């Protein structure tokens, strides 16, 4: 079924992009040369398929672009998916990249004396207020979240709050800031996400791309 309609793929800036690009290329999508120029001011890139464009945005915005149908496919971590819980997003493929975990951390000395069973209320600095609130509510604890967009690790030492919820991969940033990981909220990997309406109205085309990505993932695992 030849389709002339535009297909937009949203990719996250930063850390995950380096891991994601071999899969995107493995699926047969090659962005224009400007994509690899670190100084480029372009946000939207053409590819070797005339009807496919790639946009590069923050990982939280990948979910939003795809949920609203502005992009049709995207790659983002399940941390972002959990935070937004957009009903319009499907995550049919675990790409197995960007592995880390979403964890609660607190100052090492506090961790020794603390008894989480006695909490009724905690104050937490995080980029993930929704996930954090849900997680603690399920345990009967009211979480008052302070939304930060980065450098969460600074918050406890400066007295903003005593605990944080953040992504942890090696734990070295936590250690350097005197923090200890005390609880894992979720294991995180990146997913291929697809807009629900796009999958329903362009089923052959989009399931075709999903299986191309699946093949690329399997090839990567086998290598």
């Amino acid at each position, binding site marked *: 079924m030849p389709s002339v*309609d535009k297909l937009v793929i949203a990719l996250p800036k930063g850390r995950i992009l380096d891991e994601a690009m071999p899969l995107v290329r493995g699926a047969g999508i090659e962005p224009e040369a400007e994509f690899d120029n670190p100084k480029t001011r372009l946000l939207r890139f053409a590819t070797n398929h005339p009807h496919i464009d790639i946009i590069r945005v923050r990982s939280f915005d990948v979910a939003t672009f795809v*949920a*609203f*149908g502005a992009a049709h496919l995207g790659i983002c971590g*399940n941390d972002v*998916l959990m935070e937004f*819980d*957009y*009903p*319009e*997003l*499907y*995550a*049919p*493929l*675990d790409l197995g990249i960007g592995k880390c975990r979403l964890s609660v951390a607190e100052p090492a000395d506090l961790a020794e004396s603390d008894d989480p069973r006695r909490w009724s209320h905690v104050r937490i600095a995080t980029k993930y207020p929704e996930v954090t609130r849900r997680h603690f509510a399920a345990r009967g604890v009211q979480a008052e979240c302070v939304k930060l967009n980065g450098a969460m690790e600074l918050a406890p030492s400066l007295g903003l709050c005593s605990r944080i919820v953040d992504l942890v991969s090696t734990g070295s940033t936590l250690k350097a800031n005197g923090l200890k990981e005390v609880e894992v909220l979720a294991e995180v*990997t990146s*997913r291929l996400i697809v*807009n629900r*309406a796009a*999958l*329903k*109205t*362009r*089923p*052959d085309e989009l*399931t075709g791309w999903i299986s191309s990505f699946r093949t690329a993932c399997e090839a990567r695992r086998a290598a």
Partner: protein
Amino acid sequence: MTDAPIRALLPAGLRDILPPDADHEAGVVGQLMAHFASQGYERVKPPLIEFEDTLLDGAGAATSGQTFRVMDPVSQRMMGLRADITPQVARLAATRLGGAPRPLRLSYSGQVLRVKGSQLRPERQFGQAGIELIGSATADADAEVVILAAESLHELGVPGVSVDLSLPTLVPALLTAFAVDDERLRAALDHKDVAVVAALGGAAASVLTALVGAAGPADRALTALDALDLPPQAAAERDRLATVVALIRAEAPDLVLTVDPVENRGFEYHAGVAFTLFTKGQGNEVGRGGRYLTSAGEPATGATLFMDTVLAAVPAAKPVRRCYVPMATPRAWSQALRTQGWVTVAGLETVADVVAEAKRLGCSHFLAAGSLVNVD
């Protein structure tokens, strides 16, 4: 004292619809209702508000969280403002029209109000237009409703209509059969998150991941579903779906059909084949429907179109031909124009520059001595 800009502010999710959109909406609703009527669906008009316990009974229970409530000062009972019209029509069919011959074909249109909009579709008030087919449990009834809904959109000129068929009873039946019911698992199924489904699915993991993988174009999905070893009740549902797909294909071969066996959200009260209507290039669904039981336990199926998203998908209205009729023009002249399909705009004062006045009022022509004059 309130400032004008603040007086213009409406509560979230509510809006004024202005010319020409309001007229366009009414016209589109009229076309839809005429299409439904032409196939034997007779129009009913339930009230905007009714007692909470009848509104939220049976099929209405799923809308409980979306319903505005208000105390009735007369009866001292709680009333609910409808968030969906289907439960009201089901109530009518079970009560006042209980004795009417079956199958009962009813249509309706009206406004609904919801407590919350979604981020993608923030509207809290919107129009619904729909049909209900009550008293038939056949696959032909399922197919009739899908075809009629899709056809009515096609007739409005909506391009690229596609129907996503689902079996909302399948997943709950499987989860019960395998005793793996879990909120996080259901959420993962809703998001087709295969990794989480595989991790939480337990004994059902393989069949559930296969179901998620089966979603897609109808023929391929049915083949994939056929290959699965399902418990007897789930297998019967699957066979029913295949029959419905075959019936739709026979009647409407060009309709794009997809099947999603795990789609469950918003189908809480459905008891059989259900469906969602999409149009190409529109992020939002334009309608949905499916099989349910009325409060009298009667089998029924229906379809509801959401007018806000339908209107976004319908081609823009043709501009009307407006003609300025200066003051003191004989009424017979303007009447003659109206019978030819013109809209006449009467001048209430004598003006020096008729051309400028006609332009100011959005008219392409004005009437001078009984004949039309173009303002350009």
